[in-house]
């Protein structure tokens, strides 16, 4: 049986991201009631796991680190068809950078036990770092392929995948267990089904904190993070905008004339 672990992150809904600001005093995010959703690329990771499960005997464990409310996104993954959901939630985990997050996830993976494949989205929509997957692989001492956009060949131990590479791709042969971070091109994530939601009601989310993982407090959260935010400068606008008014036709005509005068069209 193929044991798959899918790492998902609860992120503020990217559609409402412009409502999020950073508190200048504490330098932390002020989320202002923006709802938490599954990070878009993590949905592709989840879909990849579901597709594999359709093809072969597989077990899907969803792993997420976040505030207690992130339980909802774990629940969503259970409704999509994951077999087991684990939420890592502890005040000690708060403020983790990518390194500490990857470390905590790696320790949790060891706690889950046997696994063959770890799937993550290539990047998170809120932080835009891409480090958690590859750093987790390093901590677990297993190979990593980032930006996987196609699974070409599934073998017993050795798999072949295509990974995005500049304007083309890189064909990679990799031995499992491994970490793949996936891109949107890999698949089209399915929508939640009503029956899935009903079935998920019976599935329990496992909640682990620092005690369950048995890791020292200095190695997780803000204490275990090598990087910190030192300063926040507010953005400065360097351009004086001219807002064009009039009817649609007038506005279009005016801007074309202006751009012609500027010599840019």
């Amino acid at each position, binding site marked *: 049986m193929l044991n798959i672990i899918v790492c998902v992150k609860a992120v503020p809904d990217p*559609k409402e*991201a*412009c409502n999020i600001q*950073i508190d*200048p005093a504490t330098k932390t*995010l002020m989320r202002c009631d923006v709802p938490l959703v599954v990070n878009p*690329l993590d949905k592709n990771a989840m879909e990849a796991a579901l597709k594999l499960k359709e093809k072969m005997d597989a077990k899907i464990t969803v792993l997420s680190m976040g505030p207690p409310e992130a339980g909802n996104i774990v629940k969503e993954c259970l409704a999509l068809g994951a077999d087991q959901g684990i939420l890592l939630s502890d005040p000690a985990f708060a403020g983790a*950078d*990518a*390194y500490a997050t*990857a470390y905590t996830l790696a320790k949790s993976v060891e706690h889950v036990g046997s696994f063959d494949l770890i799937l993550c989205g290539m990047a998170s929509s809120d*932080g*835009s*770092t*891409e*480090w958690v997957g*590859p*750093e987790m692989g*390093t*901590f677990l001492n297993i*190979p*990593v*392929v980032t930006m996987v956009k196609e699974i070409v060949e599934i073998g017993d131990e050795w798999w*072949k995948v295509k990974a995005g*590479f*500049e*304007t*083309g*791709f*890189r*064909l990679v*042969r*990799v*031995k499992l267990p491994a970490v793949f971070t996936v891109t*949107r091109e890999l698949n089209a994530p399915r929508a939640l089904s009503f029956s899935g939601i009903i079935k998920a009601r019976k599935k329990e989310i496992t909640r682990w904190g620092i005690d369950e993982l048995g890791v020292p407090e200095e190695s997780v959260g803000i204490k275990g*993070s*090598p*990087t910190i*935010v*030192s*300063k926040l*400068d*507010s953005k400065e*606008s360097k*351009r*004086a*905008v*001219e*807002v064009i008014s009039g009817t*649609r*036709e007038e*506005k*279009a005509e005016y*801007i*074309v004339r202006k*751009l*012609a005068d*500027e010599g*840019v*069209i």
Partner: protein
Amino acid sequence: METNGPVWVIAEQMDCRLLAVSLQLIGQARKLADRLETSVEAVLMGDNMDLQPQQLIAAGADRVYVGNAPDLADYQPELYTELVVNLAKARQPEIVLIGSTAMGRELAPLVAASLKTGLTAHCIDLVLDENNILEARIPAYGGLLSIICPEKRPQMATVAAGVFSIPEPDETRTGEVVRMEIPEHLPGRIQTLEIIQEESEGVPLESANIVVAGGAGAGDLEGWNIIAALAKTLNAALGSTRPAVDEGWTDLETMIGQSGKMVAPELYIGVGLSGELQHMVGIRNAKVMVAVNNDPKSPVFEQVDYGIVDDCREFVPVLIEKIKEYKEKQVTC
């Protein structure tokens, strides 16, 4: 004797050609190293790397470590990581800079985690603070964050192509070229079999005179196609924001900004996007900037020269017609 460890650049080649971002990073590393009174060292892995080390020296490197072997011709994750990590342990660099390329984005975290240090993603500026700690600047919600790695070494950062400029080469500069030893037993859990590059369609973003970028405001694929039609009418390159990529309307290759491409067109037209700094930093050097957004309070209107408050799906088709009329007049004159 240097008191500070060197400033490192992990250089990159593709088909034996050095990438521009590697030279750009050498230029910035030189500035940091001068301030720290230390040296700039580049690490370059590839095959037939004969002239490339001198190019790095001409750009400002004092020492180039070269891994030269057929097995290193293409990026090999395990082998590259092992070589860089072992050399870093020996050389103890103070700072390590890597391009935000496909290779850099994978190699950097593999190296950082192996060295148990921090890594800042896709910086748009790198400066030293009063204690000579590296401040890596990144745009984030509503501001510019400075990320520091106060205790762990090296301090690591990735930087996209185009953030820094290529230094004027000084062919008279001299430096040391040191051959790296390649292990006899190659690591065997992962292999890059081949790297294929495809010709991308349309006008390339980096060199385009006009860039039309679309965002979430397109609404759906149909709306996106309207924005794409505007780009076609202007013979412009089509760019995007992350939400547009996440929606699946366009490829990651078109994304402009901190974790995408840096562009410097004569004209930028942002359509249906809100002016998120992550995107806007990618077009800092545009000459004329226009935004179309239906929300008069959108932050994008603080960052452009001309603003049009309108539903982009309604406005853009009218704009296309007016541009066509203008172009026809130009031809007949």
